[in-house]
């Protein structure tokens, strides 16, 4: 019986084979390419014949006058995005869950999900218009409350927050759907019992809904921590300008300029590798913490 069952499972195991092959080709083989971070890489000589220079590229990276500020910008923007990206969808999912009409609920769900499908290239052009201090709809709205126009995309104090807000606006529909799905998995009889005991909606939310969502919230948090140095290349690249370089330049835009524009592949790889290492340490750390405090582990 046991043997037969195992044989039956073979086709199921085979089904993950394409996935494994693709992961190896596109995620593991390129790791070998990171050796150029330790080389004076010349494309025509290739990986095998380029000169080995040890940690010089890393030293060069740390010597760059703007590296620390770029690192700080990246961490700052990414952390704000992680927090907003967790809190906003949870609140929204809870609010949507309280809505009665299924049609109304779905309509809202669709509307907030929509920006997720627009690319930053398109949004870049739109945001310049709607955030414009002279004619943009956002500043006109703020003007109603007597707030002076804010140059969201051109003021280096506001720029990081603008990035976080627009990114959250674009992606929170996606997160909301995940949490709504988690909500449907909560045992309805718990609510019935709570109602019998005289718990109001708020008490129910605190004592039933949130604990029910906790595993998925922990999972999403752990997964997002791996992104702590991903402040969002596409978004920053399409929205930044010389005025906001000081607070808007992030590691990925720096790698883009060093690597693809200046063709200094070795240095660009060193910066990219540096970023990956830090991300790796953070995700291991957060997994440990999640295991310790919530009993949850990804690996």
């Amino acid at each position, binding site marked *: 019986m046991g043997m037969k069952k195992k044989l039956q499972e073979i086709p199921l195991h085979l089904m993950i084979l394409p996935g494994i092959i693709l992961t190896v080709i596109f995620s593991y083989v390129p790791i070998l390419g990171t050796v150029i971070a330790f080389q004076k890489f010349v494309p*025509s000589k290739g990986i095998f014949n380029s000169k080995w220079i040890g940690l010089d590229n890393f030293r*060069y990276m740390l010597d760059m006058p703007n590296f620390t500020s770029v690192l700080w910008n990246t961490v700052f923007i990414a952390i704000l995005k992680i927090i907003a990206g967790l809190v906003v969808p949870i609140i929204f999912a809870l609010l949507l869950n309280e809505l009665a009409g299924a049609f109304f609920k779905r309509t809202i769900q669709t509307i907030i999900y929509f920006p997720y499908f627009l690319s930053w290239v398109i949004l870049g*052009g739109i945001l310049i218009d709607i955030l414009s201090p002279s004619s943009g709809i956002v500043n006109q709205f703020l003007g109603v409350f007597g707030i002076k126009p804010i140059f969201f995309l*051109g003021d280096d104090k506001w720029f990081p927050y603008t990035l976080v807000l627009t990114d959250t606006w674009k992606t929170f529909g996606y997160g909301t759907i995940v949490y709504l799905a988690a909500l449907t998995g909560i045992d309805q009889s718990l609510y019935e019992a709570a109602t019998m005991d005289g718990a109001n909606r708020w008490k129910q939310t605190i004592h039933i809904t949130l604990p029910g969502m906790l595993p998925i919230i922990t999972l999403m948090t752990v997964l997002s921590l791996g992104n702590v140095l991903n402040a969002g290349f596409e978004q920053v690249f399409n929205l930044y300008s*010389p005025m906001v370089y*000081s607070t808007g330049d992030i590691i990925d835009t720096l790698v883009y300029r060093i690597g693809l524009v200046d063709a200094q592949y070795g240095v660009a790889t060193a910066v990219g590798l540096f970023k990956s290492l830090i991300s790796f340490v953070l995700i291991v750390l957060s997994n440990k913490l999640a295991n310790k405090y919530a009993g949850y582990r990804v690996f």
Partner: protein
Amino acid sequence: MKKRRTMKKSAILCLAGFMLLTACGGAKEANSPAAAPDPAKTDVDLMAKYDPPVDITAWRYTESTYKYENNDTIEDNIYTRTYLSDLGINLKYVWTVPVEQFDQKMNVSIASGDLPDIMWLKNKQLTDLAENDMLYDLTNLFEKYASPITKEIMLQDEASFNTAKIGGRLMAIPHTSSAVDGLPILYVRTDWLEKLGLPEPQTMQDVLAIAEAFTNNDPDGNGKDDTFGLAFTKTFLTDAHFGTSGYFSGYHVNPGKWVKDDSGQLVYGSIQPAVKDALKQLQDLYAKGILDREFGVKDRAKVTESVASGKVGMFYGSMSAPLSIIQQNVDNDPNAEWKALPLVSVDDKKATPIGKMPITRYYGVSKDSKHPEAIIKLLNFSMQGYDPEVAQENSKFGITDTNIPVYLYSLISADPAKKNLNAHLNTMQALETNDPSQLSVEEKGYYDRIVDYRGGNRANWGTERVFGSPSSFDVIDHYVQEDNYIFDAFYGAPTPTMVEKLATLEKMEEEVFTKIIMGQSLDNFDKFVEDWKKLGGEQITKEVNEWAEKNK
């Protein structure tokens, strides 16, 4: 090569024959090396049509302005079809990308080491590939096989042509064109001038006064405060349209370019002391709302929108602006009228426009290419268009009757040094005498469209304002007549320190200049000059002067 091809064919035929169980005598013999003479050693006519045709791979960029008809594409058009039918060249693009992505795509492809036969390159990549011995040395092929008309056109501006030589060897075919075409011009909305009763600007002071009036005196008469005097983009330091090059020339400084100082040494234009005065003025304009307060986030497409919707009255641009930018405004507004004017100066010294070396791309051949001579065939073919003897039959390779510039599809092209300026002068002469018979095909196209415009069709306003009169080429002709223009004195490949530091320095410059214009203290300029020197600028200056010494 021809032979090898046929051999392969016969071998395949033989294989098929074996399958049919028939004997195939001689197959083995034909495959042996002894029976295959090296084609390079035999006396074949390299310039004859390939028969059978050969595959030539290439890469290139396209621009969003390209138009096609009859389902043509960049892979399949009048050029690719003619290459195949007339030259026996089956052109295959391994990739084509929009020009904006070209540098990245090219760098990635070069890094991967998989090079096509013919590559569009820029100066830096040309130097890199040549130094790593990956390019075919074209010196002898060009010398021997370039047609007389090809040589005549390409060598008109020999200094430019020689930028494709590395160590005295011709490592690529340069895309020669006209340097004077790139000189900046001041464009002013003259219907607004008339409305406000202002004269055309003669000095920088006039420009500033007009800019102020255009901003505050409601030149479009809509009762709203929604117009700007002067338009710039967020990349104003480098933009050919909506850039500051023409403005800074009014203060006799040249940010971003290398110029000779009084002692004959090359110095970087961004750190000249007078830049500060020019920046101070821009700061004032910004504070008064004469510049778009949001110029710092707007790219060329966004500012072009402002021009098209009638919000802008003045800008510095290159000769093509009436066609590529202003035409949209003219289409939208039946009263809109603009004029191109020479640069104005802040004092009694003339403003001198500065341009760049005209070679913006090179055509390199991979060292591994089996047919390096193909590039010369393609080049000779393209240059035939300038041969008056055969010009008529080549007309289909220029601009179609439906106004589509098909010449842009050509893989290899090059222009005579003063082609566009001469086109303007010839077209003007034909207009005066009402006799277009002496015009080239391209010029006849301009002539027809100008006649059409003068007959009342504003759709051809742009052609009149580029090649007719008054026009942008009137202004360029004026520069040439007065011999009042200079070029960026450095046009070599990036020096070692440039490769390492230039990106950081340019970013710093952009940031500091932008912020000063938007109101930060002018003292930041002095700090910038100091930082620039310290962070590699001094070393770069040294290297640039060494280069200049070598290339005297």
